[in-house]
């Protein structure tokens, strides 16, 4: 098992190198590279030059191109992601502050997605061709098509706006004063703030997952072992729930890695709407200010998270399915 994990990690190295090379090249050959952040009018000439110097030093522009890449990679591996032009602070520190909230948001959403998509797909496959099946596929497709920017605005306006229902807080991840709270009520407050953002992030993902779940159920229902189970005289509920359902869960594991890029992208929008100080919020403000170090670092972190999820998925799959060989 350990060897399997090691092999998986080793296989990931070329992808990782290719990805860093891509992101390095994209930023390195950006037009107006050294004037990045120059859009800010209040910058004096001297400040401008200081920024230029900083970028030149960071990217080692006086060295050959290939050396530049390896020096950059070396810095990145050691946690030095450059310095933000906008905030005048190390990017690594900025991201470290904001990463946990984004990750929590994504994790909560993916749990919700699985909790709703799996029963939906299960029911749709049992009632195949009936009205529930058709309605469910229609509704999930409609949800998939609903623009997240609209739903976020509408949810906030209806449930958040104090002039209307005002059930949920209008933004942020915590109440304004958290000193008086016990750890329990602190967690409760946090979850209360997360309700609308998590709804926003998760509703669009039901369609694909429950479709796969339904297809997996239908595939399994046609197999021999189901006929055997039925021939033994097992009640239909036991056949579907204990035999077929458990086998149909296998492909759902692999979908987790595919879910994460979409959720990370969605969290950019959600954090913007609900003014949650996460990674997505950071990258949007950085883009408007052409703060390239932040943009590059966030893209890098996002891709690394995706790759880690891919790894976790592979390991879970190997654990769940004994047919996967470890060598």
């Amino acid at each position, binding site marked *: 098992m350990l060897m399997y994990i090691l092999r998986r990690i080793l296989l990931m190295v070329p*992808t990782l190198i290719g990805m860093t090379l891509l992101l390095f090249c*994209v930023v390195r050959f950006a*037009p107006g590279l050294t004037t990045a952040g120059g859009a800010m009018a209040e910058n004096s000439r001297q400040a401008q030059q200081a920024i230029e110097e900083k970028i030149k030093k960071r990217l080692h522009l006086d060295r050959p191109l290939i050396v530049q890449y390896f020096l950059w990679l070396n810095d990145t591996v050691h946690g030095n992601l450059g310095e933000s032009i906008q905030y005048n602070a190390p990017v690594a520190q900025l991201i470290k502050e904001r990463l946990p909230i984004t990750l929590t948001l994504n994790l909560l959403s993916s749990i919700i997605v699985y909790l709703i998509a799996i029963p939906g797909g299960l029911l749709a496959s049992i009632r195949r061709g009936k009205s529930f099946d058709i309605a469910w596929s229609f509704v999930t497709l409609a949800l998939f098509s609903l*623009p997240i920017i609209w739903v976020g605005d509408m949810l*906030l*306006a209806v449930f958040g706006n104090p002039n209307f229902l005002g059930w949920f807080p209008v*933004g942020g991840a915590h109440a304004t004063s958290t000193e008086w709270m016990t750890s329990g009520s602190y967690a409760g407050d946090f979850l209360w703030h997360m309700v609308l953002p998590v709804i926003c992030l998760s509703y669009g993902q039901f369609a694909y997952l429950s479709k796969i779940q339904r297809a997996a159920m239908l595939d399994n229902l046609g197999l021999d072992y189901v006929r055997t189970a039925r021939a033994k005289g097992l009640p239909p509920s036991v056949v579907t729930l204990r035999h077929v359902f458990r086998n149909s869960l296998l492909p759902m594991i692999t979908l987790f890695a595919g879910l994460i890029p979409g959720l990370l992208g*969605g969290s950019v929008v959600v954090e913007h709407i609900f003014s949650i100080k996460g990674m997505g919020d950071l990258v*949007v403000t950085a883009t408007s200010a052409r703060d390239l170090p932040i943009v590059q670092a966030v*893209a890098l972190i996002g891709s690394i998270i995706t790759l880690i999820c891919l790894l976790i998925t592979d390991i879970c799959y190997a654990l769940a399915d004994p047919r996967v060989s470890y060598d």
Partner: protein
Amino acid sequence: MTNETRPSETRPSGSVGLAPHEDALLRRTYWAVVGRSYWRGHLNRIATFFILLIALLTIIVPFLANSSPYIAVIDGHREFPLFRNLTRVDWIWLLWGFLASFFALIFWRTGKRNIEIEPLRAQRLRWGLALAAVGILLSTGIVLFKNDYLDSRDYHQLARAGELHNAVFPPLRWGFSDQEPLDANRLYETPSREHFLGTDSNGRDALARLLWSTRIVLEIGLISEIIALTIGAIYGAFMGYFVGKIDILGMRFVEIVEAIPLLFLLITFVAIFGRQLFMIMVIIGVTGWTGIARFVRAEFLRIRQLDYVTAAKSLGLPLPNILFRHMLPNGLTPVIVTFTFGVAGNIVSESILSFLGIGVEPPTASWGAMLDQAGNPGEVFRWWLAFPPGLMIFLTVFAYNITGEGLRDAIDPRTNKTI
């Protein structure tokens, strides 16, 4: 050409004892079969009509929502301000809209006649190529020789001052960038008889902007997807044809691009290359080709083992010829589905970028930008600016997704039976 009673030499021997309508079924082209299966779904029909409606709006929106009158007598001269003020883009849309509907008419008419399939295909291909050539030629001419006319006159002002006689105005007397005068203080107005959907932060008519947005949506949706299709098809074709090292290396690159979350990649490119309309199209295009490449590769892996490819190879045809003239037309069928979903995805990407304030530059009208102007809904909620554009995004994206699902069911007989 041929009439339907003519005994055909190419009729398959198995169809001798068939009734005429069954015979017609056998002679139908592949796309006619797919089209019939698609057209049977009610939802598919509604979605198609909606997409056509949006396309029609895109073409005729200058005649629907414009501040200049069709015709007016100013200082004793009869003038046609609206037609004079049409921009290059307006003319190009009109031209391509006319050519596309002309081609659709030919397609529809020839489809009804019971003629041989091969001549029919050749005829349609000839017409299509001829019309495309005419379109490209004329639109180049428009770009080269037509200058956009800058009209400094305010026709609302003229009409109020009584200097406009016999003027015929469009149904909506506002363009996408016409503002109420700043001193009138008519920003963020709720819907009224003058502005059916209210006004936005600059005193512009929201309904006019809603209609004009269809243009940017379609431009970005279609052109970006065509860019993505071109890249994906060529890339996938090479990978699928050369199995082995090229395939393995190529797929690693696809995986690398897919590992970077799409929105992050979009944002990175926008931060670097700016936000002109053309740039946004290219950016959305070059970030969205991986799915198409995977599809084309899978098809090519299947097709390359077929006999006609071996025949083409043994004839010594050049490689691009084999790849793009013989294999690609057969490998492109499943891509049509991806194309439809891709357009929907591009529309969403564009609206998200505009909503985040990093989309196409103002004053271009876009649904996402309108939603952004609705303000922070936690404090002040301007429903007349938030609800309609969101609904339009939803309906358009939904229509494209339904079309994609419908086409997939029609193309793939296996999934056809699952519902």
